[in-house]
């Protein structure tokens, strides 16, 4: 008689309430309410309270994290209609330059420059990318990667808008707390709106364009116009972040188009998990402070940072958000394989 090795497998059980359909929710008890609301309410409350406690350096890091969060959200929106961008720096830089130029040359206060940069940046970026919206995948990505680099070189070579020196001494926000709340509020508002939009019929069409653009075209929908709309929304968000940053640092320079603003949002989405926006937000809220905390390590900082990214992307290709969500909603236990 051969001895059989006992084998185990993971069994997953759904925990708590689960919405059984798209439109119908049945909430039975207070416990269920807590179960559903806690993962949403806790991070929101934490972000709203944090600006009071964080001052100085870590206060800046919080603003920084929200900026990257906004860029990551805008990346995720474009990705959800099939536009893979490597150039969020374009949105960020255009927003920064509109706000900076208005403030420096025309002395417009931030209360006007920020909204103007948000909408104006959206329009300019949508107009810049409209001609290439027919390109797909890596071709579109390459164009978006090149555009900010091209603009850097134009500013460098012609010396317009301060050239390599940039435009200094712009007007700041009236207080650091205001700056912090503008970025946290913008970030949370954007997260909320994007999550609502993507689950509406409008978002359904965007996701469908990513999955099968020919099927959408045969539904009499102008996919290119929809993509331009998505770029406009994404660019508004990126430009808003750029404008905030300009006034917060009171300085505008070519660094607004830096590659960091293109790459870090992509890393944040890859780390957090694409497609839900919550993943993008979580990714940037984790990654940006992490990269700042590693500053103490000096030169090895970037290497360690990259190592963490590689391990997490290989180990958790779905992203930490999806992993955590699954753990939250399901029990796992080992059962014997009979």
């Amino acid at each position, binding site marked *: 008689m051969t001895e059989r090795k006992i084998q185990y497998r993971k069994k997953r059980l759904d925990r708590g309430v689960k919405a059984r*359909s*798209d*439109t119908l929710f049945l909430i039975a008890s207070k416990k269920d309410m807590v179960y559903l609301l806690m993962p949403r309410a806790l991070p929101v409350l934490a972000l709203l309270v944090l600006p009071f406690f964080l001052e100085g350096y870590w206060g800046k890091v919080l603003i920084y994290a929200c900026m990257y969060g906004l860029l990551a959200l805008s990346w995720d929106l474009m990705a959800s209609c099939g536009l893979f961008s490597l150039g969020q720096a374009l949105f960020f830089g255009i927003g920064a330059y509109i706000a900076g130029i208005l403030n420096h040359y025309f002395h417009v206060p931030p209360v006007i420059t920020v909204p103007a940069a948000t909408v104006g940046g959206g329009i300019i970026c949508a107009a810049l990318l409209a001609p290439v919206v027919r390109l797909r995948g890596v071709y579109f990505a390459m164009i978006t990667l090149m555009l900010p680099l091209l603009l850097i070189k134009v500013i460098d070579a012609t010396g317009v808008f301060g050239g390599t020196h940039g435009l200094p001494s712009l007007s700041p926000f009236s207080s650091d707390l205001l700056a912090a709340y503008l970025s946290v509020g913008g970030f949370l508002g954007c997260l909320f709106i994007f999550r609502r939009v993507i689950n509406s*019929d*409008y978002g*359904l*069409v965007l996701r*469908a364009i990513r*999955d*099968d653009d*020919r*099927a*959408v*075209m*045969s*539904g*009499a*929908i*102008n*996919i290119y116009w929809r993509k331009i709309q998505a770029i406009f929304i994404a660019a508004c968000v990126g430009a808003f972040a750029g404008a905030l940053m300009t006034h917060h640092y009171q300085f505008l320079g070519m660094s607004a188009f830096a590659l960091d603003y293109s790459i870090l949002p992509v890393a944040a989405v890859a780390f957090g998990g694409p497609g839900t926006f919550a993943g993008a937000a979580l990714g940037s809220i984790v990654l940006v402070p992490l990269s700042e905390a590693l500053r103490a390590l000096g030169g090895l900082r970037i290497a360690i940072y990259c190592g963490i990214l590689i391990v997490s992307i290989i180990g958790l290709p779905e992203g930490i958000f999806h992993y955590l969500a699954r753990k939250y909603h399901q029990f796992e236990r080992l059962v014997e394989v009979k």
Partner: protein
Amino acid sequence: MEPVLKVNHLKKSFGGVLAVYDVSFELKRGEFLGIIGPNGSGKTTLVNLITGFVKPDSGEILFRGRNITGKMPYTIAGLGISRTFQMVRLFYNLPAYKNLIIPLCSSRFKKMRGGRYGERDDVAIDLLDDMGFERDSQVPYKVAGSLPHGYLKRLDLSRALALRPEVLILDELFSGMSMSEVASTLPLIEKFNEEGLTIIMIEHRLKELFRVVDRVMVLNFGTTIASGSPEEVMESEEVKKAYLGIRIDLD
């Protein structure tokens, strides 16, 4: 009466392959045209040319007297030429009825509803109910990927009909359907035709096709080799040759 669709000397080649060569035909309003032909005879390319997915090398396509040659697929669909796909193109991770939301988001649908969209979900479920997805069963709410093939084909047909087209082009709708599925779908198509919908149907299942169509066009190597009533066409020497691949010597 002016033809609703007119195709003049359409040509298209892919590299060295002539996919469609000098095809011309006219379609009267309410007509039911069948297009048949052996594999690779250019039937699907013809559909792609009419619906704008492929641009012709030469020739022109007129829809209600308006030149639609080289227009984008969504423009043509918006004008009222709708199609199904040979390989169904659906969104398998969405509930079945959500697949219809996409055409219902189009400006064509908005115009038909007097400038407003209304409750798209209700409209979608009404449409599916007419197509045999019973409202009170679970079928319309199931994820499309979990439905059997026959339902997917009918869902694709519903998607095409959601635009309320004037011309409907069915590209091998019945391929992969069971006899009973065909038997339940065929009367639906006939009913739409009787209500005035102009239909072009590409099909390999000739028996079913010949029961419903007014006229048949036979393609081989991208050209029309016969056209006429089903009986006339099946009598044609050329057609026998194309389908059986042999020369029939009558002597």
